[in-house]
Protein backbone atom coordinates (compact mmCIF):
# COMPACT_ATOMS: atom_id res chain seq x y z
CA UNK A 1 0.00 0.00 0.00
CA UNK A 2 1.20 3.45 -0.85
CA UNK A 3 1.96 5.37 2.35
CA UNK A 4 -0.42 8.29 2.88
CA UNK A 5 2.38 10.87 3.02
CA UNK A 6 2.99 10.26 -0.65
CA UNK A 7 -0.53 11.31 -1.44
CA UNK A 8 0.00 14.44 0.56
CA UNK A 9 3.15 15.19 -1.38
CA UNK A 10 1.41 14.52 -4.68
CA UNK A 11 -1.53 16.71 -3.86
CA UNK A 12 0.73 19.47 -2.58
CA UNK A 13 2.69 19.29 -5.82
CA UNK A 14 -0.45 19.51 -7.91
CA UNK A 15 -1.67 22.38 -5.78
CA UNK A 16 1.56 24.27 -6.25
CA UNK A 17 1.50 23.69 -9.98
CA UNK A 18 -1.96 25.19 -9.95
CA UNK A 19 -0.77 28.24 -8.03
CA UNK A 20 2.21 28.61 -10.32
CA UNK A 21 -0.11 28.50 -13.29
CA UNK A 22 -2.43 31.17 -12.08
CA UNK A 23 0.39 33.43 -11.02
CA UNK A 24 2.12 33.27 -14.38
CA UNK A 25 -0.74 33.10 -16.87
CA UNK A 26 -2.69 36.13 -17.89
CA UNK A 27 -5.26 34.28 -19.89
CA UNK A 28 -8.50 33.97 -17.98
CA UNK A 29 -9.12 30.47 -19.26
CA UNK A 30 -5.73 29.28 -18.13
CA UNK A 31 -6.41 30.92 -14.80
CA UNK A 32 -9.54 28.82 -14.53
CA UNK A 33 -7.70 25.68 -15.51
CA UNK A 34 -5.10 26.31 -12.84
CA UNK A 35 -7.83 26.65 -10.28
CA UNK A 36 -9.20 23.33 -11.45
CA UNK A 37 -5.80 21.83 -10.80
CA UNK A 38 -5.83 23.15 -7.27
CA UNK A 39 -9.29 21.77 -6.67
CA UNK A 40 -8.20 18.43 -7.98
CA UNK A 41 -5.27 18.47 -5.60
CA UNK A 42 -7.87 18.65 -2.87
CA UNK A 43 -9.73 15.79 -4.49
CA UNK A 44 -6.63 13.61 -4.48
CA UNK A 45 -6.30 14.13 -0.75
CA UNK A 46 -9.94 13.45 -0.12
CA UNK A 47 -10.05 10.24 -2.07
CA UNK A 48 -6.75 8.97 -0.75
CA UNK A 49 -7.59 9.61 2.86
CA UNK A 50 -11.08 8.34 2.40
CA UNK A 51 -9.37 5.05 1.58
CA UNK A 52 -6.93 5.47 4.44
CA UNK A 53 -9.60 6.11 7.04
CA UNK A 54 -11.89 3.48 5.58
CA UNK A 55 -14.98 5.61 5.05
CA UNK A 56 -16.65 7.08 2.00
CA UNK A 57 -16.99 10.59 3.31
CA UNK A 58 -14.04 11.85 1.33
CA UNK A 59 -15.12 10.18 -1.86
CA UNK A 60 -18.60 11.56 -1.64
CA UNK A 61 -17.29 14.98 -0.93
CA UNK A 62 -15.09 14.68 -3.99
CA UNK A 63 -18.18 14.28 -6.08
CA UNK A 64 -19.52 17.48 -4.57
CA UNK A 65 -16.37 19.39 -5.29
CA UNK A 66 -16.42 18.14 -8.86
CA UNK A 67 -19.97 19.30 -9.31
CA UNK A 68 -19.22 22.63 -7.75
CA UNK A 69 -16.13 23.06 -9.85
CA UNK A 70 -18.24 22.50 -12.91
CA UNK A 71 -20.78 25.02 -11.74
CA UNK A 72 -18.00 27.45 -11.00
CA UNK A 73 -16.58 27.00 -14.46
CA UNK A 74 -20.02 27.57 -15.92
CA UNK A 75 -20.36 30.89 -14.15
CA UNK A 76 -16.74 31.72 -14.85
CA UNK A 77 -17.04 31.09 -18.55
CA UNK A 78 -20.04 33.36 -18.66
CA UNK A 79 -18.04 36.11 -17.00
CA UNK A 80 -15.09 35.53 -19.28
CA UNK A 81 -17.43 35.79 -22.22
CA UNK A 82 -18.63 39.23 -21.23
CA UNK A 83 -15.06 40.14 -20.42
CA UNK A 84 -14.14 39.28 -23.98
CA UNK A 85 -16.92 41.45 -25.28
CA UNK A 86 -16.15 44.45 -23.12
CA UNK A 87 -12.38 44.37 -23.04
CA UNK A 88 -11.65 42.75 -26.40
CA UNK A 89 -9.77 39.78 -25.06
CA UNK A 90 -9.47 37.39 -22.21
CA UNK A 91 -6.32 38.84 -20.70
CA UNK A 92 -7.14 39.31 -17.03
CA UNK A 93 -4.65 42.17 -16.69
CA UNK A 94 -6.53 44.28 -19.19
CA UNK A 95 -9.39 45.03 -16.84
CA UNK A 96 -7.84 47.68 -14.62
CA UNK A 97 -10.22 50.59 -14.77
CA UNK A 98 -10.65 50.48 -11.02
CA UNK A 99 -7.72 50.56 -8.67
CA UNK A 100 -6.27 52.20 -5.54
Amino acid at each position, binding site marked *: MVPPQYYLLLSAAVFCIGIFGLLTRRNALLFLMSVELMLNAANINLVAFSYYWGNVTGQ*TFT*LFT*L*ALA*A*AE*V*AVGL*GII*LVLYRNFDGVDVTNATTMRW
Partner: protein
Amino acid sequence: MSDWIAIGAMGLVGVGLPLAMMAVSALLRPSVPEQGKSATYESGEVPTGTARVQFNIQYYMVALLFLVFDIETVLIFPWTVIYRSALEQGASLATVLTPMLVFIGVLVVGLVWAWRNGAVKWVKSPQASRRKTERKDA
Protein backbone atom coordinates in the same frame (compact mmCIF):
# COMPACT_ATOMS: atom_id res chain seq x y z
CA MET B 1 -6.89 -12.21 -11.50
CA SER B 2 -10.50 -12.49 -12.50
CA ASP B 3 -10.78 -8.74 -12.12
CA TRP B 4 -8.33 -8.26 -14.90
CA ILE B 5 -10.36 -10.54 -17.14
CA ALA B 6 -13.43 -8.42 -16.54
CA ILE B 7 -11.54 -5.23 -17.31
CA GLY B 8 -10.04 -6.76 -20.44
CA ALA B 9 -13.44 -7.90 -21.59
CA MET B 10 -14.86 -4.44 -21.09
CA GLY B 11 -12.01 -2.96 -23.10
CA LEU B 12 -12.61 -5.39 -25.90
CA VAL B 13 -16.31 -4.66 -26.01
CA GLY B 14 -15.57 -0.92 -25.92
CA VAL B 15 -13.35 -1.11 -28.95
CA GLY B 16 -15.30 -3.78 -30.71
CA LEU B 17 -18.72 -2.20 -30.60
CA PRO B 18 -17.95 0.94 -32.63
CA LEU B 19 -15.83 -1.04 -35.03
CA ALA B 20 -18.68 -3.43 -35.56
CA MET B 21 -21.15 -0.62 -36.11
CA MET B 22 -18.94 1.06 -38.64
CA ALA B 23 -18.45 -2.22 -40.41
CA VAL B 24 -22.14 -2.95 -40.52
CA SER B 25 -23.03 0.49 -41.84
CA ALA B 26 -20.28 0.26 -44.47
CA LEU B 27 -21.79 -2.98 -45.67
CA LEU B 28 -25.40 -1.85 -45.63
CA ARG B 29 -25.40 1.76 -46.91
CA PRO B 30 -25.78 2.64 -50.54
CA SER B 31 -22.74 4.43 -51.86
CA VAL B 32 -23.58 7.73 -53.59
CA PRO B 33 -20.44 9.86 -53.30
CA GLU B 34 -20.79 13.66 -53.62
CA GLN B 35 -18.67 16.62 -52.50
CA GLY B 36 -20.72 17.72 -49.52
CA LYS B 37 -20.72 14.31 -48.00
CA SER B 38 -17.01 13.85 -48.22
CA ALA B 39 -16.34 17.04 -46.31
CA THR B 40 -15.31 16.71 -42.67
CA TYR B 41 -18.24 17.24 -40.31
CA GLU B 42 -17.55 20.13 -37.94
CA SER B 43 -20.78 20.74 -36.06
CA GLY B 44 -22.26 22.70 -38.90
CA GLU B 45 -19.33 25.07 -39.21
CA VAL B 46 -17.29 25.56 -42.32
CA PRO B 47 -14.55 23.01 -41.89
CA THR B 48 -11.97 24.84 -43.95
CA GLY B 49 -9.77 27.79 -43.13
CA THR B 50 -7.96 28.63 -39.91
CA ALA B 51 -9.01 27.05 -36.63
CA ARG B 52 -9.13 30.45 -34.98
CA VAL B 53 -12.54 31.39 -36.23
CA GLN B 54 -15.19 32.83 -34.01
CA PHE B 55 -17.53 30.07 -33.15
CA ASN B 56 -21.18 30.64 -32.83
CA ILE B 57 -21.94 31.71 -29.27
CA GLN B 58 -24.70 29.16 -29.03
CA TYR B 59 -22.23 26.33 -28.83
CA TYR B 60 -21.09 27.96 -25.68
CA MET B 61 -24.54 27.96 -24.19
CA VAL B 62 -25.12 24.36 -25.00
CA ALA B 63 -21.71 23.45 -23.68
CA LEU B 64 -22.40 25.21 -20.41
CA LEU B 65 -25.75 23.53 -20.02
CA PHE B 66 -24.25 20.20 -20.85
CA LEU B 67 -21.43 20.66 -18.43
CA VAL B 68 -23.70 21.50 -15.57
CA PHE B 69 -26.25 18.80 -16.19
CA ASP B 70 -23.58 16.26 -16.91
CA ILE B 71 -21.88 16.87 -13.63
CA GLU B 72 -25.15 16.88 -11.74
CA THR B 73 -25.69 13.34 -12.86
CA VAL B 74 -22.54 12.46 -10.95
CA LEU B 75 -24.42 13.33 -7.81
CA ILE B 76 -26.95 10.66 -8.61
CA PHE B 77 -24.19 8.11 -8.43
CA PRO B 78 -23.80 7.75 -4.67
CA TRP B 79 -27.55 7.53 -4.38
CA THR B 80 -27.72 4.59 -6.79
CA VAL B 81 -24.96 2.86 -4.87
CA ILE B 82 -26.92 2.77 -1.66
CA TYR B 83 -30.40 2.52 -3.16
CA ARG B 84 -30.80 -1.24 -3.03
CA SER B 85 -29.09 -1.85 0.27
CA ALA B 86 -31.08 0.93 1.86
CA LEU B 87 -34.31 -0.70 0.78
CA GLU B 88 -33.11 -4.04 1.98
CA GLN B 89 -32.29 -2.64 5.36
CA GLY B 90 -35.86 -1.52 5.74
CA ALA B 91 -35.89 2.12 4.72
CA SER B 92 -39.22 3.02 3.22
CA LEU B 93 -39.43 3.72 -0.46
CA ALA B 94 -40.45 7.31 0.20
CA THR B 95 -37.40 7.97 2.35
CA VAL B 96 -35.10 6.72 -0.31
CA LEU B 97 -36.86 8.16 -3.29
CA THR B 98 -37.95 11.60 -2.11
CA PRO B 99 -34.50 13.24 -1.94
CA MET B 100 -33.68 12.21 -5.46
CA LEU B 101 -37.07 13.31 -6.74
CA VAL B 102 -36.53 16.69 -5.13
CA PHE B 103 -33.09 16.87 -6.67
CA ILE B 104 -34.34 15.98 -10.12
CA GLY B 105 -37.28 18.32 -9.64
CA VAL B 106 -34.95 21.25 -9.00
CA LEU B 107 -32.95 20.36 -12.06
CA VAL B 108 -36.12 20.16 -14.11
CA VAL B 109 -37.17 23.61 -13.01
CA GLY B 110 -33.81 24.89 -14.13
CA LEU B 111 -33.99 23.08 -17.40
CA VAL B 112 -37.48 24.31 -18.16
CA TRP B 113 -36.41 27.82 -17.38
CA ALA B 114 -33.38 27.53 -19.65
CA TRP B 115 -35.54 26.08 -22.36
CA ARG B 116 -38.15 28.77 -22.14
CA ASN B 117 -35.52 31.46 -22.14
CA GLY B 118 -34.14 30.15 -25.37
CA ALA B 119 -30.90 28.76 -24.09
CA VAL B 120 -31.32 25.61 -26.14
CA LYS B 121 -33.11 27.20 -29.06
CA TRP B 122 -30.91 27.16 -32.08
CA VAL B 123 -31.06 30.53 -33.64
CA LYS B 124 -29.46 30.74 -37.04
CA SER B 125 -26.42 32.88 -36.91
CA PRO B 126 -26.16 35.50 -39.66
CA GLN B 127 -23.23 33.61 -41.07
CA ALA B 128 -25.14 30.35 -41.21
CA SER B 129 -28.22 31.82 -42.82
CA ARG B 130 -26.09 33.69 -45.30
CA ARG B 131 -24.43 30.48 -46.29
CA LYS B 132 -27.77 28.79 -46.69
CA THR B 133 -29.10 31.44 -49.02
CA GLU B 134 -25.87 31.37 -50.95
CA ARG B 135 -26.28 27.67 -51.42
CA LYS B 136 -29.88 28.11 -52.53
CA ASP B 137 -28.86 30.65 -55.07
CA ALA B 138 -26.11 28.51 -56.42
